[in-house]
């Protein structure tokens, strides 16, 4: 079973909801090792996306939705996460170009393009204690699931699980990118807020795909 524009729309709506729910928690994480605005930034961005979804044409493709998310995040989030997530969605849109239905390969390509976009802008490597530490394991897990013949929903499930583990695994790390890098050893023991928001977003993607698949 493949995923279509409805899945992307549901993903975006679920993302907005989960970010709003976790706004305070993301602020708290960012206060520990950053400047305490990540939850506010992400919530401002996704709150701005929601009303714009109504303006999309009825025949909008997944790429159209992703591009809308990208430009809205870029123009409302600010901070480091705004351009990084913005680029992620922009590259994701590029990866699925004019596809109406996304099969496993397309979904995996979408995730990889998003991750590569973030690396391109932010130059972070795995282990730098950034959102990349959630994205990269997610992409690897998606690759493996795709190779194992999983469905798109299963691929997203695997990616979400890996992102969650990746976010958790940022806790013992010293940061080498972003504000947390200024803290040196003091960042140890704290989870990276961007990795956590990535984990939330990918979990939302899997959840709404799961619902779509079983529906």
């Amino acid at each position, binding site marked *: 079973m493949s995923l279509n524009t409805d899945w992307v729309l549901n993903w975006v709506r679920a993302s907005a909801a989960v970010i709003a729910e976790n706004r305070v928690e993301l602020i708290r994480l960012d206060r520990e090792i950053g400047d305490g605005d990540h939850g506010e930034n992400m919530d401002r961005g996704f709150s701005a996306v929601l009303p714009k979804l109504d303006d999309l044409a009825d025949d909008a493709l997944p790429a159209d939705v992703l591009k809308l998310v990208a430009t809205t995040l870029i*123009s409302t989030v*600010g901070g480091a996460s705004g351009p990084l997530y913005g680029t992620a969605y922009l590259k994701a849109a590029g990866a699925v170009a004019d596809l109406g239905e996304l099969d496993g390969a397309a979904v995996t390509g979408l995730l990889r393009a998003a991750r590569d976009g973030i690396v391109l802008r932010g130059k972070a490597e795995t282990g730098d204690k950034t959102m990349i530490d959630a994205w990269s394991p997610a992409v690897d897990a998606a690759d493996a699931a795709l190779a194992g013949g999983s469905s798109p929903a299963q691929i997203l499930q695997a990616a979400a699980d890996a992102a969650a583990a990746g976010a958790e695994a940022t806790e013992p790390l010293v940061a080498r990118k972003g504000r947390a890098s*200024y803290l040196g050893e*003091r960042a140890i023991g704290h989870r990276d807020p961007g990795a956590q928001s990535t984990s939330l977003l990918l979990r939302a993607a899997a959840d709404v795909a799961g619902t779509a698949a079983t529906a």
Partner: protein
Amino acid sequence: MKKLINDPKNVVPESVEGFASAHADIVRASTDPIFIVRSDAPSGKVGIVSGGGSGHEPLHGGFVGFGMLDAAVPGAVFTSPTPDPIVAATAAVDGGRGVLHIVKNYTGDVLNFETAADLAAVDGIEVRSVVVNDDVAVQDSLYTAGRRGVAGTVLVEKIAGASAQRGDSLDDVAAVAEKVIAQVRSMGVALTPCVVPHAGEPSFALEDDEMEIGIGIHGEPGREKIKLQPADAIVDRLLGPIIDDIPFASGDKVLLLVNGMGGTPQIELYIIYRRAAQVLAERGIEVTRSLVGNFTTSLEMQGMSLSVLKLDDELTELWDAPVQTAALRWGR
């Protein structure tokens, strides 16, 4: 959280509105997107735009005016502005000779200004960017996002502003800005955290007898938390790494900036200045210009930073040149 605000969501727009109304002789404000611009922009000179998260006032809006910035773009509190208002401000000040972006070195600021510069270039505006990174508390290495831009930014904005005001080309203004960036070093300390309005909680926790050494300007914790010390000992602790970094040497003429973080009374800033001037004098470094006050703040944080800029005749002349902004004014 105790603040003289209405809705936390309206802090930036309401404050910008008040600022523009109080200083209508110098600036006007655009409200959508939000930026502050010289009332006489664009002019025939190179334009200078800076910006960044709010909460550092008077940086940057307080430095818009004759001889300094042409526009300032405030983001949400402690959050870099998005590209749109930067592009709009850039367009508003471009008089055909190009625009310099003065960016503080934070991933968010760098990325958003980068995108804005790309977009402005598409519109045919020539943009150059300089990135301020004066904070010696952060080791500049492969293992960090690089040194942060802190209070030295004010000195870059003043001196680059004077260069643009006297009619220098974009290349020359950028070169002057780079020279200031190369020659200024800073380091700060916090006695108390600050509270971001939308967060409502202190940015870090400190016991009554603790301070944070090597803080940035966003309420981030510093490099180390240590026991509170007398003012003179704190100055010695900050000034050492600053002096050793370039290094500043005997015979150098410098500008000494004692910058309050927002909640420190002036009486304390001058106690700090006294010791800093003493230490520099002992090292044979001559303070020929000075600046004391709240210039690059972190909301209501108690604390301060020291900045030392190595001066030469050109930089001194540009520093002394007339400036007329809300927060810095002389010569007119």
